[in-house]
Structure formats: structure tokens, C-alpha cells
């Protein structure tokens, strides 16, 4: 214990991040946070579709959603580069219609992170939607609630634990994203050089072990925090599947 006294000036200086390190951490949080905000509506729509709707080609959609989970990340990054680069079909469209460039920008890093996190998010939300008794929604409809109303008052609240877990899990996955990011949007300081890329760059330079250790420690702390939170939310969802029963009763 004496080894890690908080008032020891040496320990304190070792624990305090430099402005450069803060910038990397801030960028990582910004990229992952925006990736989650962008991915959530898409993940929820896909999860709902896969959980509740039968349609031809469902197996194919399911497989496509899971592709980023099983493909090598560099392949995902390369596909994104082909599609979203200024010469790619989607990239050219975005540039012409909205003036948006993703290549070499943090928004591109967020897109890569969102795509890589999507399968995990869809899985988590889908499980929680499948656990909702469809008769609750039907009951709401028979009581005069419209589709949107029953969705907002029954489906969404009951799927909340899954949605929260998806956010936290997706966030943790985004923080660790490396292969797709460096292949798609390069390793630009202040734009796309997130924690894993900064660690990779430091690893290329002999004698940078301290920098590597510090950044690695930061990413361990961030990821562990996110994972512990996700586990707690999952346990909450499992332990009280009817936890929002009072809500359903209201209708």
C-alpha cells in the first residue's frame, strides 16, 4: 500500500495525463460517443426487424449485420474506403449533395467504429426485444393505442436494459477499434489517431515503452469501466425481465 500513496508527488505526476494524452483520450471518447449516437437508431431498427418481422431474405440480412463481427477489421476498413472515399460511390454522393468528407476526418473514424460495433449492439437489443411478450403490445393496440404509441410506451421502455447494454458494449468496442480505422481514415493526429492508433504509433518507436504503458493503462481503465457497466446492465435485464411491469400495467 505504501507503494501507491496518492500524496506521493512522483506517483501523482505519473498518474496525471499530459495535454497530448488528454487530447488522445478526448478524441477517442468523442469518436466512440458519436459512433454510438449514430449507430443506436440503426441498431434498434435492425434489432426490431430481426426480432419481430418475418420477411424473405431475413437470414441474409442477419448475416450481413454480423459480417463486421467475423470479417478481419482491415477488410471492413477497405470496404469503407472503397465506398466512402471521395472517389467511392457513397463518398462522391455525400461530397456532392452535402459537402461531407469522411476520409482523414474524425467523422470517418466514428463511422468505422459504428460499423464495427453494430453487430454487438443489434444482438443485445434484439435479445431484449425478443424477451418482450408481444401480447403486451397487442393489448395496447386493442386498447386504442396507435402503433407509435404502443411502441413508445411498451416496446421501447421494456427494451431499455438491452439498449443501454448495447450502448455500453458498443462504446467499449469502439474504443478498441484499430484495423478498420487505420485502413479507412489513416492515423492523423487530432482527427483519427484514437487510443489504439496512438499506441500502435508509439510501439513503432524504440524507447517509447513508458508512453505505450500509460496509453495502454488508460484504455484498460476505460474499457473495463464500460464492460463492468454493461455486465451490470445485462444482469439487471436478466434479473428483472418484468421489472417494468408497472409500466405495462399503466396502459
Amino acid at each position, binding site marked *: 500500500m505504501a507503494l501507491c500513496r496518492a500524496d506521493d508527488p512522483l506517483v501523482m505526476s505519473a498518474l496525471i495525463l499530459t495535454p497530448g494524452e488528454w487530447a488522445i483520450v478526448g478524441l477517442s471518447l468523442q469518436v466512440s460517443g*458519436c459512433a454510438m*449516437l*449514430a449507430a*443506436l*437508431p440503426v441498431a434498434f431498427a435492425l434489432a426490431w426487424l430481426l426480432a419481430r418481422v418475418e420477411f424473405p431474405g431475413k437470414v441474409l440480412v442477419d448475416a450481413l449485420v454480423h459480417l463486421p463481427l467475423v470479417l478481419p477489421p482491415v477488410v471492413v476498413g*477497405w470496404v469503407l*474506403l*472503397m465506398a466512402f*472515399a*471521395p*472517389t*467511392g460511390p457513397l*463518398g462522391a454522393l455525400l461530397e456532392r449533395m*452535402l*459537402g*461531407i*468528407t*469522411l*476520409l*482523414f*476526418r*474524425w*467523422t470517418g473514424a466514428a463511422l468505422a467504429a459504428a460499423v464495427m460495433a453494430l453487430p454487438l449492439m443489434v444482438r443485445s437489443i434484439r435479445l431484449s426485444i425478443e424477451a418482450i411478450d408481444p401480447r403486451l403490445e397487442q393489448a395496447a393496440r386493442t386498447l386504442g393505442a*396507435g402503433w407509435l*404509441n404502443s411502441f*413508445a*410506451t411498451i416496446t*421501447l*421502455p421494456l427494451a*431499455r436494459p438491452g*439498449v443501454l447494454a448495447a450502448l455500453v458494449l458498443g462504446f467499449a468496442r469502439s474504443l478498441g477499434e484499430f484495423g478498420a480505422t*487505420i*485502413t*479507412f*481514415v*489513416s*492515423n*492523423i*493526429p*487530432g*482527427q*483519427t*489517431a484514437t487510443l489504439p492508433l496512438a499506441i500502435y*504509433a508509439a*510501439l*513503432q*518507436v*524504440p*524507447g517509447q515503452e513508458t508512453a505505450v504503458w500509460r496509453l495502454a493503462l488508460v484504455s484498460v481503465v476505460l474499457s473495463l469501466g464500460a464492460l463492468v457497466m454493461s455486465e451490470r446492465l445485462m444482469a439487471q435485464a436478466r434479473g428483472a425481465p418484468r421489472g*417494468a411491469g*408497472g*409500466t405495462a400495467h*399503466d396502459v
Partner: protein
Amino acid sequence: MGSLSFRLWATRLRALLPCRGAFLAVGVTLLLWASAGPAMAGPAPQPGAGPLVLAAASLQESLNAAADAWARHHHARPVLAFAASSTLARQIAAGGAADLFASADQEWMDSLAQTGRIVPGTRAGWLAGALVIIAPAGSRLRLRPVPGFPLVAALHGGRLAMADPDSVPAGRYGREALQHMRVWDALSGQIARAENVRAALALVARGAAPLGVVYATDALAEPKVRMIGVFPAGSHTPIIYALARTTASTHPDAEAFRRFLLSDEAAAIFRRYGFVPRR
């Protein structure tokens, strides 16, 4: 009628205390989505930043030093992005708006030249590299790479660390040199293939391999290893780093920084890191 049902809906929303967070989240998301468009449309990433230079990972220390020197001349410091030359070249080929590209081999520069992604007159075979044999710093060994030199015996059953000869340029040059010296065939099964040349360097620095083949620049950067022999230039394809300005370049400082990298002042910096500047 419409407003009544809306009010009913809103009341119900408010009644659902436990899920207010969820609605808040959805609302915030929609708001952010709506505002994301204009935010992403912003042109320059950082106002006042220097030109964007995409460079081979092996240039990390030396190019950073050169950029610092350039910044000391009261210019905005260039933004340097380091990755594998192949990765960067693909991004430029896809239309990425970088200003300068510094490649560790000529092939990628050739492919960009063919597709018109670099300005022809700005291309330069800029730096030359040397290939060396290294051992841990404590080693007393001396090995002069001449045809048939006793490399296998010097390994004492250990492995020779080098970048993957099938996919990494440093490994490809290494195999050529070892084949030229007629020791490659005897080495079979005694190569520790690393995913890049710096990983091979680390294997020797950590004592996991008794010997390694890396660039002179790598050997100079790592105090835990010692250069014990240099491969003669004729034993492998010349190792040339190429520099060029891209056609997509828009930064007013791009050309000036490119010229600076070719100047005597920059040459002195790159020489210090083990490169041989070419004129």
C-alpha cells in the same frame, strides 16, 4: 383532434417516469443527427494547421524531427500521419486529400503516378536506406556480410529476426541480400518472421533472437542493439524512400515543406537518423 391525441400521448410519456431517460436519449440522438450534417461539412480539420503528410511508419522519428525544424522557421507544423506505405497509398488512390506522400518503396509511388494521383515534377527518390545485421548490445560478435559468411553458425541454433520476407519490404530486401550472400537456403526454418521491421528489431533488443536483419535507421534508434555488419549496397534492390506532392493537395505550404525536406538542412537531420539523403 390531432392535438388532443398528441396531448394524450405526451401525458403518457410524462407518466412513464422510468423510461424518461430512454426518450431523452432518443430525442438527443435525433437532435444530434439533425445537427451532424453541417458539423461534418466543415472544411479544414484544424484552422492554422500545416499541410497533411502521409508517411511510412519507419520515418516516424526522423520526419518528426524535420517537422520540428520546419516549425522553428515560423511555419505551421505539418500534420504527420504514419502507417504502412501500402495503407496510405490506397487512401491517396481513393482520393484522400493529403498534401505530401512519403513512401518506403517505389512501387506504391509508381502506382499512384500511373493513376495521376501525384504531381509528376514533384516526385523525388529522396532518401536511401541501408540494410544491416544487428545483435543485442552486449554481443561481441562481428560478421562481415560477404558471400558464404558464417551466419548460421553465429546463430548457435537461435533464430534470425527479420520482417516477413513475403509481405514486408524490409523482409524482401533482407531475403535478396541473404540470397546474394548464398546463406538463405541454409537458414530455412531459422527465421523469426515479424509483421514489420520494428517488431524484428524488438525481438533482438529483448534477446528473443540472437541476430536480426533490419534497416540501419532502426539499429540507430534502439540502444539495446548493436550494428555488427552492413550489407553492401549491391546485394539487394536499392532501398529508396520516395517523396511527392499529391494532385489533391490544396495547402499553400505543401510545396514549400516538400522543398524543405529536400534541403541541406533536412538532409543533415535524416542523416542523423541513419538515412542517406540523395541529391
